[in-house]
């Protein structure tokens, strides 16, 4: 069976790749895959540039087989799809996507769209977090995986979540100097989460292996640690923290990897008509879908861009979204495969609730930040600036606060500070987090170079000036 509808997939990580595979296998013949990266794999299975020679085992460790399989799957589809790499999708409107890539700005129509946009680190600001040498955990990992570099000569990893231990382990293994790991989560929380974590014994064991490896190398691991300030004038010089017993310490370091989990990249789905829903246990807004990835008419979503589930869940969700799309095209659904995916995803979802409990986001620290701490790093808006705006104007929701204080109005479009801003507004005004809303996605979702827009406009003006048809000026 051949399917001629124009299908566009945005993202080619675990979710996007499995969606593409499923669609091509079912006979879709007009499939376009768009990605900001030069090669497939997403952030987790990100490939190194041409000319690098480390093998998959070195790059992806215990996940090397999964990574290699996913890369091979995408590469084998090269002849069946149109692939646009290093291309940003910056808007979706009226069944069209707006891109900016090597060829400038383009507008592509689609019949159906699969969004597999992934996630970025969830951060928590603290004094000094904008200093050179502070990177997200994901950013620190990319420096190593994609560039074979460490982010500094003496690195402290701070935050919580499985990525914290994974990146610290990868750094230590690659020969970097890991000074310490500071985990905001307490040991007791992890112990309580054990029954659920045991639902995925292999993943649980892997986390323990990373920790043991770090301990054996003499890397101190502090659980229940609270980072107080990153010190330094022009770059990172140290980190002050309080340990679980309440004692303060200062570590000498020149780089910090910081991250407290992940936030879904859901701006494009929102522009495409998707609705968000508040998850109280994660304190996050996620995409609302029908259980199979349908978020709006002809729009499907999968992976960490919907809700944080990790790479294994993303692969399954990518396949499931593609099956939903095929079912909507009238192709008989493979019920047994859907059931199988459903069962595996429920098991992994239960494991994920264990992770969320073991590595809870320390939201209460936000309201306790000093006034001087920078909240919006794009435009240097401090916690004090935001508190003043809240006091003066009593905004009821976070988009209003953004307009008043400019926090979230910068180049990152509130990706980094938006959730923090909402937490601060909720805590300061004594209201539940879900009532203050979330920053709306706006096009362009990432900045476009002015020259790209100018060229586009120049062409349009030239065409109009040189056209033979003369239309009356309205």
């Amino acid at each position: 069976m051949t399917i001629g509808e124009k299908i566009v997939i945005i993202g080619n990580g675990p979710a996007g790749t499995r969606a593409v595979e499923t669609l091509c296998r079912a006979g879709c013949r007009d499939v376009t895959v768009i990605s900001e990266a030069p090669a497939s794999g997403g952030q987790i299975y990100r490939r190194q540039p041409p000319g690098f020679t480390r093998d998959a085992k070195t790059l992806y460790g215990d996940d090397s087989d999964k990574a290699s399989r996913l890369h091979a799957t995408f590469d084998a589809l090269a002849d069946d799809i149109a692939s646009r790499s290093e291309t940003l999708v910056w808007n979706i409107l009226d069944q069209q996507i707006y891109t900016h890539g090597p060829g400038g700005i383009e507008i592509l129509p689609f019949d159906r769209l699969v969004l597999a946009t992934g996630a970025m680190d969830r951060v928590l600001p603290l004094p000094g977090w904008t200093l050179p040498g502070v990177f997200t955990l994901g950013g620190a990992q990319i420096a190593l995986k994609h560039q074979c570099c460490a982010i500094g000569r003496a690195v402290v990893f701070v935050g919580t979540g499985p990525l914290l231990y994974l990146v610290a382990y990868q750094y230590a293994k690659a020969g970097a100097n890991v000074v310490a790991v500071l985990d905001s989560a307490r040991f007791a929380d992890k112990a309580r989460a054990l029954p659920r974590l045991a639902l995925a014994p292999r993943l649980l064991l892997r986390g323990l292996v990373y920790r043991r490896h770090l301990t054996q190398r003499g890397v101190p691991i502090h659980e229940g640690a609270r980072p107080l300030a990153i010190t330094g004038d022009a770059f990172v010089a140290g980190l002050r923290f309080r340990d679980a017993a309440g004692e303060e310490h200062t570590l000498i370091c020149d780089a910090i990897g910081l991250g407290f989990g992940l936030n879904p990249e859901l701006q494009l789905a929102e522009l495409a008509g998707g609705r968000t829903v508040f998850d109280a246990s994660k304190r996050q807004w996620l995409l609302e879908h029908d259980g199979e990835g349908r978020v709006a008419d002809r729009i499907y979503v999968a992976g960490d861009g919907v809700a944080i589930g990790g790479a294994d869940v993303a692969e399954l969700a990518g396949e499931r979204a593609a099956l939903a799309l095929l079912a909507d095209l009238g192709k008989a659904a493979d019920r047994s495969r859907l059931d199988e995916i459903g069962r595996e995803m429920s098991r992994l979802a239960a494991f994920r609730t264990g992770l969320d409990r073991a590595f809870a986001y320390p939201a209460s620290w936000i309201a306790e930040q000093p006034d001087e701490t920078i909240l919006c790093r794009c435009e240097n808006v401090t916690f004090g600036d935001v508190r003043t705006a809240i006091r003066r104007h009593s905004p009821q929701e976070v988009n209003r606060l953004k307009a008043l204080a400019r926090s979230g109005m910068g180049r990152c479009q509130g990706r980094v500070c938006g959730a923090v801003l909402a937490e601060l507004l909720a805590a300061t005004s004594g209201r539940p987090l879900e009532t203050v809303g979330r920053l709306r996605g706006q096009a362009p979702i990432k900045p476009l170079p002015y020259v790209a827009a100018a060229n586009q406009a120049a062409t349009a003006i030239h065409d109009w000036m040189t056209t033979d048809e003369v239309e009356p000026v309205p």
Partner: protein
Amino acid sequence: MAMTANRAGQFVRLGETSRAPVLIHIDGEAVPCLAGDTVLTALLLHGRQLRVSEFGDGPRAGFCNMGACQDCWVSLESGERRRACTTYVQAGQRVLTQERP
């Protein structure tokens, strides 16, 4: 590689050094890099900042390294701007890390 203690870069190379050499200019200074380095990597192997915040809060050197946070935009001498973490070095690139007076 000529590198004095006070001229040390932020990043440290841990391997993969047999790639083709590429020469770029950072603030007018010729800096040897390797093919496949991002501009962010090249700048941070050479120094400790990518730019100075236009909002008066000091130097910046990127943050997310995956094209999301937009902290690492740098200027080229030609006047264009590039996101350093998603741009790869090319022979002849001339990058500026400081605001011109």
